[in-house]
């Protein structure tokens, strides 16, 4: 079986995978990083969103072998010990989740938006979330959370 090596949340990792092994399977089943969720498995819901070399991608539609040599960030890599990442803290403060299933993808997608745009408008956040589905909240508090998290990340209160 081919082997693959990449950096996940700052740590070098490697493993043996099949050609058809998805990045999300490698993260969850090989590395035990189950924070990244599989919702639809059809590239629509965004629960599996991770960052590959700084860009948000759907890890259910990305082969593990395509990540050879790449820097991967998952939701587990955001917090600094007990201290939540500003985007995570914003979701907590704004009640940006109900069941929580979509939340890892929402947070990784929100961080990716904030990296491109430190002060997104409500409209920009709603457009950005085209690729992240939530079946509980009606999105209102998720949008508030991402706007607050982006401001916090760029040093605005």
């Amino acid at each position, binding site marked *: 079986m*081919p082997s693959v090596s990449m950096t996940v949340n700052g740590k070098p990792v490697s493993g043996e995978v*099949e*050609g*058809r092994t998805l990045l999300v399977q490698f993260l969850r089943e090989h590395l035990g990083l189950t924070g990244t969720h599989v919702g639809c*498995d*059809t*590239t*629509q819901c*965004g629960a599996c*969103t991770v960052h590959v070399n700084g*860009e*948000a*991608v*759907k890890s259910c*539609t*990305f*082969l593990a*072998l*395509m990540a*050879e040599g790449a820097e991967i960030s998952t939701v587990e890599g955001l917090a600094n010990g007990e201290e939540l990442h500003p985007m995570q803290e914003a979701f907590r403060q704004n009640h940006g989740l109900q069941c929580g299933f979509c939340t890892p993808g929402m947070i990784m*997608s929100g961080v*990716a*938006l904030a990296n491109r745009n430190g002060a997104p408008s409500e409209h920009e956040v709603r457009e*950005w979330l*085209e*690729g*992240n589905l939530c079946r509980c909240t009606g999105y209102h508090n998720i949008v508030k959370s991402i706007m607050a998290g982006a401001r916090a990340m760029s040093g605005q209160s």
Partner: protein
Amino acid sequence: MYEFTYHRATSLADAKAKMGQGDDPTLMAGGMTLIPTLKQRLAMPSDVIDLGGIADLSGIRMDGDTLVIGAMTKHHSVASSDVVKAFCPALAELAGLIGDPMVRNRGTIGGSVANNDPAADYPSAVLGLGATVVTDTREIAADAFFTGMFETALEEGEIVREFRFPKPKRAAYSKFPNPASRYAIVGVFVAEAADGIRVAVTGAAPCVFRHGGMEAALAGNFSAGALDGLKGDAGAMNSDIHASAEYRAHLVGVMARRAVASIV
């Protein structure tokens, strides 16, 4: 997914060589169509040859008055490119309407055009702007490239290198997206090109096509009003759970008028 052997091509020559070795190999650009297709077991290639590692297939540049976009250039790169926005804002806007941000970070213009999905956006821009498709062996005019549903003039194993877009005087794209997938139920790309008016329609029929009646009407009078009464031919339109053929035919007229109204 059925099992396959994954290869990461390091150059165009390497990709060609690897295509020559497998029993039933396939090329992969961004994977935004191929991977879902494999997951549904709708394809069973022996080998998947990833073009993602070939740096010189990606990039945006001007060559005189011609815009050149590498085949592996991501939708996000086109949507956010100042060069593309200055050359033809409609092309950047079209790229920004594909899928969602994560899909636009992976999907490529070459993959979209080579796949020629009937509901893809890019084929309408390539045809509507009268672009040239440059492959590893030849140049193909857009008018000769799109030959049918998921069919193109590409030979087995032929690899798209880049697209060359002649500068239009003005252009616009108007799309009625499927609200779930963002694929075009109908999308119309209208351009006043150096060689005349071009109206390319995607989503509506089995393959992107030019609407000669609309082109003739706009050549005489470039205004939305010139398209009154013109629409698609319901007998040639797709019909599915998302939209009937009659509805698509109607939308062809509406989207074309919206596109023209946005640029006059």
